[in-house]
């Protein structure tokens, strides 16, 4: 069986390692200080796609991402790990999109892409932590969704069986294809890059990247079509201008504040027996404990 698999992935600022220089004086984010990474749970989704391809080797995996032109970095990363191709949906008019405008734009790209069997995405992206884009794309495409997936147990006869990891348990569900499956961080980690694929695809480039390359590298792209990564814009996916970008977003950011915690006047103690006994007595006396 050859499956046509789409993986949704996002390039995100690495909010997990936010250093002191990540916030500017005025309390806004200094995006430049944060490295851009492959959204972690999207790598879990890619691994599930690669496993489907392991079981059905004639399948193709296409990465779809919406973002800045530099998002083709994560497409190369996915190709090094075993994906076949990638599309960056990029356009200035798509900027400032909330999750609804993002889902609409990505759903338009999926429609342009054509026939597919399954869409895999991460549960959520670490910059927004909303977990909304997957289900919203499913709704826009009019297909079912399976969220919080930990493992694709089986895909056959037009159905996919998925194990879901919920707050307080697990659930196994069977959904008809095509559908959207969003994958949890608790799913198996993505396999590493394959050295041969790195060799083969390291010069892969998108049109925006190609524009800045030497003539020699441009010639290489012409000679080897598989090195050309695709870039699509809003017009190409026939996106309604009213539904994309900032104007197409029902939610608006009214205000942004830096997080500040009010420091307390703290009592400093050391680990000596005397000080700890005194603390315990005090807490008992004022009925905090006991």
């Amino acid at each position: 069986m050859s499956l046509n698999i789409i993986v949704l992935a996002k390039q995100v600022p690495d909010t997990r390692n936010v250093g002191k220089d990540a916030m500017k004086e005025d309390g806004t984010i200094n995006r430049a200080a944060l490295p851009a990474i492959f959204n972690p749970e999207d790598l879990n989704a890619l691994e599930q796609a690669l496993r489907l391809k392991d079981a059905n080797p004639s399948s193709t995996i296409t990465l779809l991402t919406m973002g800045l032109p530099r998002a083709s970095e994560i497409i190369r990363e996915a190709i090094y790990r075993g994906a076949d191709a990638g599309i960056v949906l990029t356009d200035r008019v798509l900027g400032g999109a909330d999750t609804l405008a993002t889902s609409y734009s990505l759903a338009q790209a999926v429609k342009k892409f054509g026939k597919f069997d399954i869409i895999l995405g991460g549960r959520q992206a670490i910059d927004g932590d909303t977990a909304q884009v997957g289900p919203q794309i499913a709704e826009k495409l009019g297909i079912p969704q399976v969220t919080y997936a930990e493992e694709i147990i089986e895909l056959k006869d037009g159905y996919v069986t998925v194990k879901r990891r919920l707050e307080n348990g697990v659930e196994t569900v069977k959904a008809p294809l095509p559908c959207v499956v969003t994958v949890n961080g608790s799913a198996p980690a993505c396999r590493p890059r394959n050295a041969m694929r790195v060799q083969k695809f390291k010069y892969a480039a998108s049109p925006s990247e190609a524009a800045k390359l030497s003539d020699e590298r441009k010639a290489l792209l012409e000679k080897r079509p598989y090195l050309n990564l695709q870039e699509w814009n809003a017009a190409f996916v026939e996106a309604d201008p009213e539904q994309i970008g900032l104007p197409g977003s029902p939610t608006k950011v009214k205000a942004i504040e830096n997080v500040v915690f009010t420091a307390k006047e703290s009592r400093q103690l050391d680990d000596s027996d005397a000080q700890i006994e005194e603390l315990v007595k005090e807490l008992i006396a004022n009925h905090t404990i006991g």
Partner: protein
Amino acid sequence: MNQNNLIVYLEFEDGRVADVSLELLTKGRTLASKLGVELEAVVIGDNLDGVEEQVFPYGVDRLYKVSDKRLAPYTSNPHSAVLINLFREIKPQACLMGATCIGRDLGPRVSSCLHSGLTADCTALEIGDHTDPKTGKEYKDLLLQIRPAFGGNIVATIVNPECRPQMATVREGVMKKEIFDPNHKGEVIELDPKKYVSDEDFVVEIIDRHIEKSKINIKNSPIIVAGGYGVGSKENFQLLFDLANTLGAEVGASRAAVDAGFTEHARQIGQTGVTVRPKLYIACGISGQIQHIAGMQDSSIIISINNDPNAPINTIADYVITGNIEDVVPKLIKYYKKNSK
């Protein structure tokens, strides 16, 4: 038809309305009163007898019940279909849901279909006015949806000026649950499921399900002993359990401790765990990153035990004990036993 009210989606399992839903009713009651509208609730499932008794004391004015065997347990499309069709009729101005596996599966689907904005994981909800910075257009009494963004490093206030309902999800424990009036009575409206959901919506089949109610109840414990990565190992975490048992406390953890496998996820406190506000919070080997503090800063008294005198958590602590967990925790146990009663 009553329109323009505030509605809460109730999660319901094994005869009980989920805590997170009751917390949202408490919040929703305050917001609805402020807006001068009614508080409505909707419950979708099977065997819904008695749900009204559970929710009326929280101030619900109207409860919509949609009952069908196939609607329990929860699946995405049928529950979405009910809400979408119901909301088209009753046009609520705002809808609140738990930021749970259910709410975060259902909310996006409903908001996508109704083209209404949805803000996930709000930590505060208020009513306020908004002026569009570009057009200068003024909006009165919007739902201000406040949430951390960027991994918790900033707090953003989100509004949905034009689209209705204004939708928001909130995690369990973030809002307080409080009886509004034990004698409050509302109206019950039983809806015919056939009018709201069609056979084609039942596309996803649940083959197997193991849901266990977590026995861990850190949210309601007056004393919490929380361990971080600095505790060092699963074995050392036992020290915290010993202290907790001595004090009649529960054990909580930072995400780093959970990720390292020192203890289970149900104990995680913070932005992606539970929010707690105990009388006493003892933070053991926790550095105090923003995402952790977000879930415990409202504790009445905070004790930090850390071998780094400059750990960020120390700034919000009432007592800072500089030392190693291995030394300090046994001493706390010893002197408590010696001095209590």
